């Protein structure tokens, strides 16, 4: 009876999931595979500020087509705000205005960006007249000296700009360049100074800000580079010595020294940017059939969510896949791990660090933590303070590893900030108890088991196909649920038991 109930329930769940899945694939034409080459991106900027209580106005610079990228659609989500589009002297802007606003305000801007096959003509725009910068006294002398020195060693505006950038980058503590840059110059500051210097040399130049489009990017950052007019067309110079050209798929957003957005009547303006690969075309095809039900289906799917939230769900929907693997490894294979779901958490952490670094960090942090834990054994601390102490040691170890790897030039080391610290501390505590009670072999076995299972979950969860299927067809999770329910009544041997009981099979 219980069995039949389970089978019927599983069959219903799997049937429902598969039916919706097949409908979406066969009738609506949703893509089964992630597109190999990303052609379309969705960019979303979320701006937040605290309104003071009167009229508020937000001016946002908008991206423009160029550099082989075209903005094919854009929209604004700003409940209650009036929107006017305007063109500044060189930038496209949008102005959000409201008569009366209180408390935290959120405004979204979304753009659909498509890669073009042919280069566009925006590089041939005429150069505007930009006045030379107003400099006085020591600054003026220093700037002119720098320009003079660089001009002698260069042939044309491009080489002059490259030379000036190089000079600014390698400025010594108290030379002319340092005077202009000021203390601790950022890249943006350096580019601003370079643009000033070029204008003194009579070349039209400006700082430009843009966004490099990557398949998946939450918390994307704007990059800044230098643009100059060489007499016939605009040339971009990217402040990198290794590759002074713009990274591919860089969306040009705005130029000049003003920030992305400015607010009046509000404070604490902040913005965050998300970029994601777009399935807009597939969805368009579905929408074009124009039937109500299908439209609703798309609207009420994960695609209906804001881009930032979508990114979170991209990570969330693959967790069940990892869990299924974990269930199989634990209940059918019989791998021993610490904690029930710890390996999946480890796998999630690996998503930030990549596999190899994740394993290196895991092993190093646990090793350091474990030795500290053994040392603290002598101090006879009570459990909760002891755990807290281990947490602090873990945080310090992570920080030290990050600094070390950064200094050694491994940027990966910076991405471990979200490595689950508490989980690591608990692992260390469990491991040390098992170590003392059951011996190092058992302890290392379980740690290795957790790590291997975590790595396998990560590898599975990071497959592009898995992520695509889980995100585009979340109904497949019902099929996973059915499988896990069935595994819940699996009463056969575990693989490790075949070894354990092999004497009995003789």
């Amino acid at each position, binding site marked *: 009876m219980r069995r039949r109930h389970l089978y019927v329930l599983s069959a219903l769940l799997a049937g429902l999931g598969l039916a919706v899945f097949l409908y979406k694939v066969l009738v609506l034409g949703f893509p089964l595979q992630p597109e190999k080459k990303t052609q379309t991106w969705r960019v979303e900027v979320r701006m937040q500020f605290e309104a003071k209580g009167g009229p508020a106005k937000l001016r946002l610079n908008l991206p423009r087509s160029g550099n082989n990228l075209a903005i094919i659609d854009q929209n604004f989500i700003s409940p209650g705000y009036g929107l006017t589009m305007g063109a500044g002297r060189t930038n496209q802007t949008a102005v959000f205005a409201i008569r009366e606003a209180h408390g935290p305000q959120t405004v979204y801007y979304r753009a659909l960006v498509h890669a073009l096959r042919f280069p566009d003509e925006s590089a041939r725009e005429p150069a505007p007249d930009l006045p030379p910068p107003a400099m006085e006294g020591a600054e003026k002398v220093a700037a002119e000296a720098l320009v003079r020195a660089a001009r002698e060693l260069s042939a044309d505006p491009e080489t002059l700009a490259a030379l000036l950038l190089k000079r600014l980058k390698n400025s010594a503590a108290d030379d002319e360049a340092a005077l202009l840059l000021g203390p601790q110059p950022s890249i943006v500051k350096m580019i601003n100074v370079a643009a000033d210097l070029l204008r003194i040399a009579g070349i039209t130049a400006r700082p430009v800000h843009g966004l490099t489009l990557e398949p998946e990017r939450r918390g994307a950052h704007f990059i800044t580079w230098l643009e100059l007019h060489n007499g016939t067309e605009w040339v971009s110079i990217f402040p990198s010595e290794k590759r002074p050209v713009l990274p591919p798929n860089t969306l040009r957003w705005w130029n000049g020294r003003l920030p992305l957005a400015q607010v009046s009547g509000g404070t604490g303006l902040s913005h965050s940017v998300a970029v994601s690969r777009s399935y807009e075309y597939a969805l368009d095809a579905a929408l074009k059939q124009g039937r109500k039900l299908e439209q609703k289906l798309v609207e009420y799917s994960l695609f209906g969510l804001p881009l930032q939230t979508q990114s979170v769900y991209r990570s969330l929907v693959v967790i069940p896949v990892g869990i299924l693997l974990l269930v199989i490894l634990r*209940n059918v294979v*019989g791998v021993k791990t610490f904690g029930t779901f710890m390996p999946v958490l480890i796998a999630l952490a690996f998503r930030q660090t990549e596999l190899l670094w994740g394993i290196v960090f895991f092993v190093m942090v646990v090793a350091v933590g474990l030795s500290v834990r053994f040392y603290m054994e002598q101090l*006879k601390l*009570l*459990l*909760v303070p002891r755990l807290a102490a281990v947490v602090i040691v873990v945080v310090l170890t992570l920080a030290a590893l990050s600094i070390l790897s950064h200094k050694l030039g491994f940027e990966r080391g910076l991405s471990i900030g979200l490595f689950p610290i508490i989980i690591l501390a608990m692992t260390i*505590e469990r491991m040390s*108890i098992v170590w003392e*009670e*059951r*011996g190092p072999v*058992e302890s290392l076995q379980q740690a290795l088991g957790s790590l291997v299972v975590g790595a396998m979950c990560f590898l599975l969860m990071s497959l592009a196909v898995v992520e695509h299927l889980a995100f585009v067809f979340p109904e497949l999770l019902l099929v996973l649920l059915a499988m896990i329910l069935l595994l819940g*009544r*699996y*009463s*056969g*041997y*575990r*693989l490790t*038991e*075949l070894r*354990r*009981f*092999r*004497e*009995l*099979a003789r």
Partner: protein
Amino acid sequence: MRGLLAVARKLRERGVMGINERNADFNLVFNERSRYPLVDDKLLTKELATKAGAAVPRLYGVIEIQHQVQSLAAMLADYPDFVIKPARGSQGDGIAVVVGRSRNSYRLADGALMDQAELEFHVSNILSGIFSLGGQTDRAMIEYRVIFDPVFERITYRGVPDIRIIVFLGVPVMAMVRLPTRAAKGKANLHQGAIGSGVDIATGRTLTAVWRDQIVSEHPDTGNPVQGVQIPQWDRLLELAAQSFELTGLGYLGIDIVLDRDLGPLILELNARPGLNIQIANRAGLRARLDAVLAHRARLNSIPERVAFARERFALAS
């Protein structure tokens, strides 16, 4: 792959039970969740057993909160030897057996010395729950140290050997003696390296033994044969085991009994998820025996009936 399938088929034929099977078909079916605390908390078990008139090691005292740790020395003053254990500990973790004192220190069963501060720290650890299932806060119990019956003296390395009997619906289905070894640091726990020796349910004589999933015939430390030892008062042990069903209401459980030199069989603890190594020690599968009990469930009512059934059906010859 084919080799594994052959092993699986062979095991199935012999009625060997895996952990999934135990959980799915026995623990989840015959053991009510609400009754687990009765066996997970050894203090509750002790109370129950005492009420039912079954012998248990005498309780000297309980430490429930950190503050009471200060009174530990006073509590222990009258007792030269004792055992401290977590009430909700699992798999023998966190048990400290004090066999005597030398000057200001306590001497443990494995020969190590512990001073007052170390013992208090151990009790604090117990209270904070590091040895308990799921890590809930716990209580530390201090009880009589069993002076074990000399019958196992020749095949034990320190520690206290105990007898584990699996009881299904009140019928003792399989039994083994667990003998501490040097590797187990004197603990009678198979996971920690103790030996388990199968026992003939009909006669109470030991059979072959298992050590770390392997079959052995001698004790690895003493070198004496473990086979053919007659367990004294076997009838009484079977009765105690059969009685544990009414005591707890758990259909499937393991009962751990020690033989005290002076006091006879004492119930040490009950276990709602007894391990499966007992099958290797007995070179027999549990499933067949459990099915036999299920088949005759209707006529197995009184304790004598159940004991008689076990002796008849699960004798060595069968």
